[in-house]
């Protein structure tokens, strides 16, 4: 579904990604872990071109999205993204947050979007918040809404950039529950996270990134039981 070929990204002199190669298949739940500064978030943000790669290719459903001729807005409609800081639109009600893009882009009319919004809110048990503003929500609620906002576009793949890292500990669970349910529904997911329990339980493949490359990858079971690289062992000994 997504093929990444020799992806490099530099910020000035800072060479953050040093040649990433990977293929993400439909239905996979790829969990990206690794020490901070290793390029996890940059890699994820390159997948929908929030960061423009310095070189390399990203092929999404047969289309090279790094080609300047590619209409990235059309590609992004099919790639949902959830941010660490939620980034809900504070001046809009929850309903408007969710329906803005589908209606604006002409994918649904108002009624269809409202119906989809109600259905999604019910799924995350936040129906009563439809007309509230983001400012009145807790962190966990905000992130569940942010997930729902992306889902309203009916994306083919969902990208999660440390979705629980800025949450109070007691709110992490409710967000992971939503993600777990999403995984069960068959969604293709790429998740950057520090939640090792989630990685082990939900992931179908673990990518360990360090210093701008994928140092090691494996199934969760193998990865956590028999890490091969020295860096991986060291990392796991610190976080587990």
């Amino acid at each position, binding site marked *: 579904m997504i093929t990444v070929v020799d992806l490099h990204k530099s910020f000035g002199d800072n060479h953050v990604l040093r040649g990433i190669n990977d293929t993400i298949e439909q239905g996979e739940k790829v969990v990206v872990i690794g020490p901070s500064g290793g390029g996890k978030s940059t890699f994820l943000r390159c997948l929908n071109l929030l960061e423009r790669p310095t070189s390399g290719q990203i092929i999404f459903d047969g289309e090279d999205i790094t080609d300047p001729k590619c209409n990235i807005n059309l590609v992004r409609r099919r790639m949902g*993204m959830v941010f660490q*800081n939620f980034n*809900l639109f504070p*001046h809009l009600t929850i309903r408007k947050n969710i329906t803005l*893009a589908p209606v604006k882009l002409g994918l649904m009319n108002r009624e269809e979007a409202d119906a989809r919004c109600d259905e999604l809110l019910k799924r995350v048990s936040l129906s009563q918040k439809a007309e*509230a503003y983001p*400012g*009145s929500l807790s962190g966990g609620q905000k992130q569940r809404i*942010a997930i729902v906002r992306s889902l309203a576009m009916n994306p083919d793949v969902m990208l999660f950039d440390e979705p629980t890292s800025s949450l109070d500990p007691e709110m992490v669970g409710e967000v992971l529950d939503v993600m777990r349910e999403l995984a069960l529904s068959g969604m293709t997911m790429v998740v950057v996270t520090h939640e090792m329990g989630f990685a082990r339980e939900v992931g179908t493949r673990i990518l360990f990134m360090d210093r701008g490359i994928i140092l090691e990858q494996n199934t969760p079971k193998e990865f956590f039981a028999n890490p091969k690289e020295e860096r991986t062992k060291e990392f796991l000994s610190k976080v587990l």
Partner: protein
Amino acid sequence: MNIFSRIIEFFSGGFSRIVSVLFGRGRWMLIVNGLKVTLLLSFFSVIIGTVIGTVVALIKVAYVNRPKSKVLKALNTVATLYVNVVRGTPTVVQLLIMNFVVFASSSNMILIAVLTFGINSGAYVSEVMRAGINAVDYGQTEAGRSLGLSEYDTMKEIVLPQAIKNILPALGNEFITLIKETSIAGYIALQDLTKAGDLIRFATYEAFIPLITVALIYLVIVLGLTKLVSMLERRLAKSDNRR
């Protein structure tokens, strides 16, 4: 007679004097027509200033996001020059230049004044707008773009509404300044409110009554605008309610 007794006179004993100064020989029509000119100038200058200011701010923000674009670079240079020139020269001088140099052949003073004040205000509005846009967290833009919204839609639906909410007090400030700035329209022989007051002073040899009257009218206009801005502020602050 000192100023306090004049004030007391203004509000009490001198009533008949006030009537004769302001209403004798149809002089109140000067005030009414002057008020019309002042309101006309203010209204259209605010609109032109807002439009120019927004466009200039968007150019500057767009250039920062895409420093490689040649078109934006050229536009940004023009925009910067515009802001510097307008802010660096007195409004009266700008008005005189517009009247006697740029539009020397035109006799449409209202149009000349509206353009001058609008162009003048645009420079200040653009800086206020730019600050407002930059103050909106970049994550908002990223969230909009990641949903597939275009740069334009993201700016219009997500960034600008939040920016405007934040800069409303500063914008109100700018519009108040602008309304009062139109009082120099008399320099190009426009009979605005200030000029009307001055003409009555001239005709009646009475300075206090017409000038204080004019000052009070400006005060009422500005207070009205202040009220309007704070109403708008309250409406936009709806999303701040934490239930």
